[in-house]
């Protein structure tokens, strides 16, 4: 049974299987430069946005995002800070030490003014759509 014909058949079926796999891959997405597989046709999921705190400023001072997106504040300054919403009161990072970070998932649309409770002259806002 293990003659040349059966060998050929096995090679052929392997080739077919590979081709099918390749076709499935191509129809669903593309290869990214690192060789990983990226789905192209599926809409983007929730995003993560970064607000850097440096030299007593929230950068960017105004950030627009979508419900479900995440905001991450990173304290790159030389002193501790907070990111605390004032109007409406919705989130409070508590004290972020130097080098610390904190994440918040936006759950409701609206405009959120926030400041640093330790240095209330640092003001910024999030616009959640």
């Amino acid at each position, binding site marked *: 049974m293990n003659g040349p014909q059966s060998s050929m058949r096995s090679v052929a079926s392997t080739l077919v299987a590979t081709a099918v796999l390749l076709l499935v891959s191509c129809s669903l997405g593309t290869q990214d430069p690192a060789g990983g597989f990226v789905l192209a046709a599926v809409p983007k999921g929730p995003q993560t946005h970064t607000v850097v705190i440096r030299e007593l400023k929230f950068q960017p001072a105004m950030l627009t995002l979508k419900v479900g997106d995440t905001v991450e504040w990173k304290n790159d300054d*030389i002193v501790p800070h907070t990111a605390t919403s004032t109007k409406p009161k919705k989130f409070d990072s508590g004290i972020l030490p130097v080098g610390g970070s904190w994440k918040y998932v936006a759950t409701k649309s609206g405009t959120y003014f926030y400041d*640093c409770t*330790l240095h*209330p002259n640092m003001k910024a806002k999030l616009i959640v759509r």
Partner: protein
Amino acid sequence: MKISSGLVLSAVGLLGSLGFASETFAQQPPSDANIGAIVLAANQIDIDYGKLALTESKNKEVLAFAQQMVTDHGAVQKSVIELAGKLQLTPVENDTSNSLKAKSVDVTAKLKSLHGKEFDKFYIANEVAYHKQVTDAIAGVLIPNAQNAELKAALQGAQTLFLGHLEHARNVQATIDPSAVRDAKKTK
């Protein structure tokens, strides 16, 4: 009410002659080396008030504020020392830095004589007045006279930080001693 107004008045009285007045510089504007000594003295004084408050106060907000002053002014102190090293600037004591230190001796004695809520009220009233004096001096005297661009930029950064402290101190005062805030508004 009477006690708190009295405390505020005495805090203002003590601070009124801090030595930051611009006439001090009428004849001789401060050099960069003088500015270095003034900033180091001003920072150290507030660190020391903060340390005193950490040992004396029982109020959560006052303790948090005092800890912040020790941390923030400590960070500024470190960066001023680093900048002075980089610029090869040796701080030179002067009338203003010496006057600041002399006046802080009086404020410290007053702080040590008070306890409980009276301590908290005086400490915060002093922090409001002290940060107001220091930020007025940085904007009116130190920044305009700073010659080195990096020193000027550092002073501008410190100014933003200290203005934040001033606003925070006023917020704490509004919580722990609302009558003092009302009195201050009346006298404006």
